[in-house]
């Protein structure tokens, strides 16, 4: 199936359209809210929350006695929030660190959820096939109503984001200052956390407990590399998230035996890898290039300063010297001399070299920090 066929299929096939829309929306909202998680150094909170949601789902099933997405959602939301606040309580009130608190809540809640789930399975009316899906997720179970819920939550969180933009931003970068300005940081904090829990709970059905944290982190971590502006980062993260959803769904729909959740996560991981390497200014590749450039410049500067020391011994600094003189100093090559000529620091004449005006002044100012950067 060609790309064009696939695109027409997305627009014509009801199921595929629903799933693509659903995963794209999920990716977008996760990218948006994940940006806050990454910047607040709460990256693993998403992992803890997604595990902590399990007992809520099980209890909702026990109380209600039937599979119902809405009750599951409420149950997951309540126990996810409970887990989050317990994490905050543990780190605030005891000397246990945040990693321990996260690990505790994650594993204890999940274990308790497991206990409840296996207990339910042994009951008579146990049609728990739907519950299993929450563990590993299944995008195919997305229905139009789920897409509407996702769209609604995305819309509301976008509105709240715009409305409290200033508060969110200042809380992100300077919580202490926010407090002194008289903002109620607790409420802002609870607001962000609640929406994060909501996004995670919505995603559980699609990508599952284990992979949810990557949905939240990967687009944001990738977006972080491209910009230093908060709003740009959020937009880029949302786009990356949505693209991961769309591409991941596409790959898994056209191949056999590829579950959607893991493929989406791997696509997001590719975005991260690409951003880590190729992002301008922060990316590893450009950093390496810059590093090598600096090292080369340093070498040229060193050669220049040796030449300057030699030229200084003469009354006229433009007096030519043999290249051989430089042999004691090993840090030069034909190529580097040529480069220095290109910069018009020196003139080469056969086996002789002499400094130019420009090179002379450059050498004088070499140790003057202000001039070191521009050597044009």
């Amino acid at each position: 199936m060609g790309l064009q066929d696939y695109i027409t299929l997305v627009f014509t096939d009801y199921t595929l359209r629903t799933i693509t829309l659903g995963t794209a929306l999920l990716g977008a909202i996760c990218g948006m809210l994940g940006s806050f998680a990454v910047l607040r150094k709460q990256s693993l909170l998403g992992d803890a929350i997604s595990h902590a949601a399990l007992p809520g789902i099980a209890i909702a099933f026990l109380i209600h006695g039937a599979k119902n997405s809405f009750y599951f959602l409420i149950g997951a939301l309540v126990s996810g929030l409970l887990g989050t606040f317990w994490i905050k309580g543990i780190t605030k009130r005891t000397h246990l660190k945040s990693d321990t608190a996260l690990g505790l809540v994650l594993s204890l809640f999940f274990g308790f959820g497991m206990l409840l789930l296996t207990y339910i399975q042994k009951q008579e009316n146990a049609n728990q096939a739907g519950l299993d899906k929450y563990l590993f997720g299944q995008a195919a179970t997305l229905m139009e109503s789920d897409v509407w819920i996702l769209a609604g939550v995305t819309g509301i969180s976008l509105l709240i984001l715009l409305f409290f933009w200033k508060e969110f931003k200042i809380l992100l970068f300077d919580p202490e200052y926010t407090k002194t300005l008289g903002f109620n940081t607790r409420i802002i904090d609870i607001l962000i956390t609640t929406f994060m829990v909501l996004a995670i709970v919505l995603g559980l059905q699609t990508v599952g407990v284990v992979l949810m944290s990557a949905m939240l982190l990967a687009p944001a971590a990738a977006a972080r590399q491209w910009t230093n502006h908060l709003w740009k980062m959020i937009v880029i993260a949302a786009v990356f998230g949505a693209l991961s959803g769309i591409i991941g769904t596409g790959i898994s729909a056209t191949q056999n035996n590829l579950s959607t959740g893991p493929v989406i996560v791997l696509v997001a991981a590719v975005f991260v890898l690409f951003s880590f390497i190729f992002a301008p200014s922060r990316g590893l590749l450009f950093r390496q290039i810059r590093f090598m450039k600096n090292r080369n410049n340093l070498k040229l500067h060193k050669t220049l300063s040796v030449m300057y020391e030699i030229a200084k011994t003469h009354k006229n600094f433009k007096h030519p010297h043999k290249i051989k003189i430089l042999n004691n100093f090993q840090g030069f090559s034909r190529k580097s001399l040529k480069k220095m000529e290109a910069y018009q620091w020196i003139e080469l004449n056969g086996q002789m070299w002499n400094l130019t005006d420009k090179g002379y002044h450059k050498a004088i100012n070499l140790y003057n920090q202000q001039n070191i950067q521009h050597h044009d």
Partner: protein
Amino acid sequence: MTSAQFEIQLIASLVAIACAIPGTFLVLRKMAMISDAISHSILPGIVVGFFISHNINSPLLIVLAALTGVITVVLVEFIQKTGLVKEDTAIGLVFPAMFSIGVLLIAQNANDVHLDIDAVLLGEIAFAPFDRIYWEDYDLGPKSLWVIGTILLITIALLITFFKELKVSTFDAQLSAALGFSPAIIHYGLMSVASVTTVGAFDAVGAILVVALMIAPAATAYLLTEDLKKMLGISIVSGVFSAIVGYWVANFLDASIAGSITTVLGVLFFITYLFAPKKGIIAVLHRQRQQKVEVSLLTFLLHLHNHTEENERHLDHLQDEINWQRGTSKRVVDLALKNNMITINNQIVSLTDKGKLFTEEAISYIISNKKSEIEEMKSRFFLFRG
């Protein structure tokens, strides 16, 4: 109790001990979430090991899985060192990617792989006694018992041999580097032990519950003591206790043993979290309240000490002056009265000799900036605490 039941409890207890030892150090080194990452990312190692050996019982699986665990740690550290993202983000990026690869590998070869992701994640210790090792028709016991027993023996041997090094590098990495034990070697050693333990334990209790067995006993112990040896002891005891109690709870409810062990661990931690003598929530809140009242009391006494005029020492005036709520001022005055610091005559408060002595000593400590001495002084003067 049948022999199968006994064997399950024995295996569970051994797993608990084997997890508690590296878990204690992970918690102390603030690396608890690494265990979560390792427990998920060993999946591709297991799958690849299975592809090569075509035998779920092959030791190759354990070796490859442990190797994947160490690779995860190295990858996390590499990403972190680039400075592009923080450590927790690095962890959160690496393990879902590894896990996804594992899930896809299984799905791609679903026909000839009898590997169940559920089993990897959740484990089923109830089946452990059925998978036995025979030596010339002689029953040597369940395989998991041998696997986890070996891992435990190695862990204990390493713990005893390198206890001093572990201790120093955990609490003071710089000192340990200066003394000549490389923190890097100890770090990777610990990570390898954690990986191997996770792998050995996962088919008994599952990947996520390994995390619980590593972190929860250690966290419980850390709330009760600050002595490393005692902490190791308490985490081992609470791990084994949860394993045995958890087994019987599961037996009673006819539910997952691993889930029930974790739940008992959770209850144990929660009780400690509330009631631990010094670090528990109730103790902390009580101490905070006490501190608050005692600080108020000191302010109150200083005020009395500064003023000889009667109108400044009238009970009603105090409320306006120091701006306390009625409840607070009543508690402070009551505390002062109980400790014989003040006398009240016609609504006028005056310091007793003891109160004067206390206040003057407090002032001298405050002036000379020895505020920590005040705590000691309080215990000398106070008959009743706030």
